């Protein structure tokens, strides 16, 4: 089976998030950049499903600046077969991400598109579902377990209040949740091989997509800070505070 997996270059989740001095965006100078963790899970799932379903191809796609090549190479080092960078500098909203991916899908004709359920930078969580609608395909978001069999994907989803199982005819779009799998570490031979794997470069223009963002970020601010709390000596003091000061009991 053929898989198209998307990877986004994002700030490391362990790095402290700070606004630039002019508040025009989040400071990335000197900050480690990684593959969005949910996308890494999507890559791992594609690799496992490729093995389970008797081979095929895993194609990794990223939309971003030339720097995003590093994130594509990380996915290739995990075992993906080839990469596509759709080169775009500057902001691109979820709708245009989906439009670009729609064009890539039309070119590549994958059986399954695997994506992370959200990127940990803008936390929008929209592109996969928009893509599914543009393609007229079924979707399964927040996947916990994926079974590809009999021309369909049966997916257990992490829903509100329990686990929901849905089936989608192939081709379809699936987004990975945290517990879908534990991504492998790239091996040294994997990293060496990745350097030689094919990586094509495209642009939104070449794919026929004009990026005119319809979600425009007007500014950023720091969230309101909570005032520092107090330590209490023992259980009696805590219960007293909760009852008489916070009136929370």
């Amino acid at each position: 089976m053929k898989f198209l997996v998307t990877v986004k270059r994002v700030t490391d989740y362990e790095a402290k998030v700070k606004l630039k001095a002019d508040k025009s965006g989040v400071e990335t100078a000197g900050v480690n950049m990684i593959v969005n963790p949910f996308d890494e899970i999507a890559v791992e799932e594609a690799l496992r499903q490729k093995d389970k379903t008797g081979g095929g191809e895993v194609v990794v796609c990223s939309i971003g600046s030339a720097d995003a090549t590093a994130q594509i190479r990380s996915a290739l080092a995990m075992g993906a077969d080839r990469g596509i960078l759709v080169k775009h500098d500057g902001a691109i909203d979820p709708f245009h991400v989906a439009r670009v991916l729609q064009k890539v899908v039309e070119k590549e004709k994958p059986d399954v598109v695997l994506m992370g359920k959200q990127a940990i930078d803008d936390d929008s969580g929209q592109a996969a579902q928009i893509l599914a609608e543009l393609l007229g395909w079924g979707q399964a978001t927040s996947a916990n377990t994926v079974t590809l069999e009999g021309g369909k994907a049966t997916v257990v989803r992490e829903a509100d209040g329990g686990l929901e199982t849905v089936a989608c005819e192939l081709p379809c779009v699936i987004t990975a949740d945290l517990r879908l799998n534990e991504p492998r570490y790239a091996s040294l031979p994997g990293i060496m091989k990745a350097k030689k794997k094919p990586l094509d470069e495209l642009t939104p223009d070449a794919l026929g997509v004009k990026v005119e963002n319809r979600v425009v970020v007007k500014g950023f601010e720091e969230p309101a800070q909570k005032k520092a709390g107090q330590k209490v000596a023992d259980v009696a003091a805590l219960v007293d505070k909760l009852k008489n000061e916070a009136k929370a009991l």
Partner: protein
Amino acid sequence: MATHLIVVEHQSGKLNKASLSAFAAAAKVGGDLHALVLGQGVGEIAKAVAPYAKKVHVGEHAGVKDRLAQPYAKCITDVANAIGATHVWAAASNAGKDLMPRVAARMDAAMASDVSAVVDEKTFKRPMWAGNVIGTVELTTAKKVITVRPTEFTAPAAGAAGEVASVSVDPGASKMSFVKFDAVVSDRPLLQDARVIVAAGRGVKGPEGIKTVLEPLADTLSAAIGASRAVCDAGWAPNDWQIGQTGKVVAPELYFAVGLSGAIQHVAGMKGSKCIVAINKDPEAPIFQVADYGLVGDLFKVIPELTEAIKKAKG
């Protein structure tokens, strides 16, 4: 003038109260509020939201019995277009997150996810980078789709009941089908609705710790139980209990963080709580920085003592 359509969510015959936050957010823009209830046998749900809307549209069809994104997106879009909706809203629940981007694509509308404030009819504030940054976003399309962070909007006061009318819906062809839903069965309140939450971190050391130490405290307070990602990943608690950036966002009156270090991802999901109590044996744990009251100590000793003391204090 704006015309709003609020997509009402329900599960097992009950209204998901998070939907009310979407009415509250839409009211901040101003204009007429319409609601849409899709499903089968959902008359009671429609009645429950009538006091918040000018008109409730009820779309009953076998094809929308189960909530699937593809047929739902078509029905919602058809109704939104029929009433000339300028804004379509839903709670940023798991279901809302799954469904609404698809509605946005179908309506050719821009979408703002998980908004925490309404600035004007096209401008919204929303948490980004796990809530470490608040972005102000403008939607430039004529039609707009918005999901609302329920903890940031107080449910509106009930008004005179609006008109309830059925609307015919056509789910169209779908590439998706529903297989089953395995509900997490519990006698406790839902995390999103609970007045008090007791949350377990890795310090509880296993499912036994939750059962023997945290449950009695939760019983005393009629509290819901939540957990950190580490606890859910370890299989000590169901995934549905996870609170944080990638789990549930909660804001109860009283939140007990027990044996929980307070990783950024967890704090993003609970820092809106009115009163936060942290109990941890490590005095340097980051959770103490967000706690209103911190107690340094061994939870296996402190929590049973606390449970007894609260029982006494409540008489």
